[in-house]
């Protein structure tokens, strides 16, 4: 007997798969970076709760827990790579979970741009994460000083660009004024 209503959208996955995936990512990541068992349970639970009550933002709670777990542990390249992938995935899934209800369906084709963008961003971020893991941290490179220097550099570049823009604008204004004068002189000569 035929169902009373049907809606065909092609290959699709249920919306409930998003919080389940996010919870699995949070739990597996927490376990793999060696967090205590309590937090291994709390992180996916927060994600699942956030899947039901969206205002909680469970995915971001789990991401924060993973970052705290990373900070609490000794620096390690694979741990950094795991957390970079996990927080990015939690950010993407959490953003989708805010608008996609549990009982809805998502066409697989609609997730293709998200997957492609995730891979591209991960390639860049993992490379940066690997470089950052190789930097010496305790021996005498105070990151606060580096960050301050970077901030000064950025500020300087911005100021120079602003001044250059202002100067160029001033020149263009002067040129325009001179052009106007010249045209009036030409018409006067004629």
């Amino acid at each position, binding site marked *: 007997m035929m169902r009373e209503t049907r809606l065909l959208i092609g290959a699709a996955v249920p919306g409930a798969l998003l919080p389940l995936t996010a919870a699995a990512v949070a739990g597996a990541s927490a376990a793999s970076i060696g967090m205590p068992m309590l937090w291994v349970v709390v992180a996916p639970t927060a994600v699942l709760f956030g899947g039901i009550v969206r205002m909680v933002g469970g995915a971001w709670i789990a991401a924060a827990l993973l970052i705290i777990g990373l900070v609490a542990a000794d620096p390690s390249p694979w741990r950094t790579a795991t957390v970079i992938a996990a927080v990015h995935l939690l950010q993407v899934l959490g953003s989708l979970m805010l608008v996609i209800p549990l009982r809805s369906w998502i066409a697989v084709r609609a997730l293709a741009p998200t997957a492609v963008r995730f891979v591209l961003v991960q390639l860049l971020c993992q490379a940066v994460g690997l470089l950052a893991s190789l930097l010496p941290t305790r021996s005498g490179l*105070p990151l606060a000083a580096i960050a301050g220097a970077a901030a000064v550099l950025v500020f300087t570049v911005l100021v120079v660009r602003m001044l250059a823009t202002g100067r160029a604008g001033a020149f263009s204004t002067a040129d325009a004024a001179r052009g106007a004068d010249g045209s009036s002189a030409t018409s006067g000569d004629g």
Partner: protein
Amino acid sequence: MSNPHIARGSSSRRSSPSIYLAIVGALGTAVMGALLARPEVIAVGLPFALWAVHALTTPGGGTVRVAIAKVEAETTDRLSDDVVIQSGAELVEVAVRQSERVRRRVFVAGSARLHSRVRPLHSGPLTSVEVAVRGLDADAGSIGAPQPPIHVTRTVQPVLRRLPRLPLAPRLTGLHGAHEGSRPGQGGDFRGIHPFAPGDELRRVDWKATARAARRPGELLVRRTNSLSDASAVIVMDTADDLGTVVATWGTPDPARSGVTSLDHARSAARSIAAATIEQGDRVAFHTLALGGRSVRSGGGRRHLARIVAEIAASGRAGDDARFRRTPPVPHGSIIYVLSTFFDGAAAEIAMRWRASGHRVVAVDTLPELDRSRLTVERTLALDVLLAERQDMLHQLREAAVETVRWSSGIDGELSALARAGTAVQSGVGR
């Protein structure tokens, strides 16, 4: 000119809270990594930062165009529609309501085609699919404005029942038809032998009768026959109530659990009576009793039947002013079928008025067999009172010489009995 099946929405967008959370995450990891001299912690915030920048700078996919295309299904017991979505958005949220009750929400790519299939539970007008959309970009970080819904309304043909014989109108009209008329003409039975008169056709001369019974030389006798005439039927449908088999669903818009409704019966009765009337060569008109309701003037033939069936299928429950009825005009000497549940006195009053003016009126009770399950004691008592009042109404109709039948499995027998009774009465009084 706007098309109800095509919509094009605005392109205004808003940011999701996830963007602000991503910014907080990026700044938090940066500050934490800087304070703790942990560059890898800063690197963890990089996906947050890139995600937020992308979401803030993405232009959005513009407007979302959505259209509904009817699909001719291979079977008549289901309705198919295609929902075509075209946009530059990365993801489109589609809220769908099928068959006026089932709600679904799906997320599809920016350009997609959805196929909706509905099995109608009732006859009559049905909004088979209603769609509202909004575009999403950057992993739903950028949310488009929801667009006003569009819908497509289909009509579901009522069930046709074969009615072998229908009661006849009290007065026959015209010189064409399938019924024996009362005036001299052609096509009917033998009427009598008469002297030849101007206007008689020579081929009507009965030479044997002339040889036998002519009283003067040169006198000719002709055979005369009755004419064939047609009758007029009027179908009047009361659309004030749509009451289902399950009494517990009365007053609630729950077509899935209501069972067969009184309007299903009314539409089926109207279609069956119209088809049987046209089939026996008579003229038929159709009216609904609601103010501003549908009307099809009297006529005959298959095209006219198709027009009437289309109007019957498009007749739904009347609006809030359904308690105020109109009295449609009917041809003299018609037989009028009043299709109603007769719960309130309006339809019965109009039927009695028509009967008093000389029409033959058949009241067709369209209330289905009732299912009293899940009723409280109070509601059962209220139902009993309503049914008692209805019985009283039907009794008044019978007292006013309005013939009453119930639209059920034995309706063909009841109508045949009415036809026989009507023939006996008419042959007694002459036509």
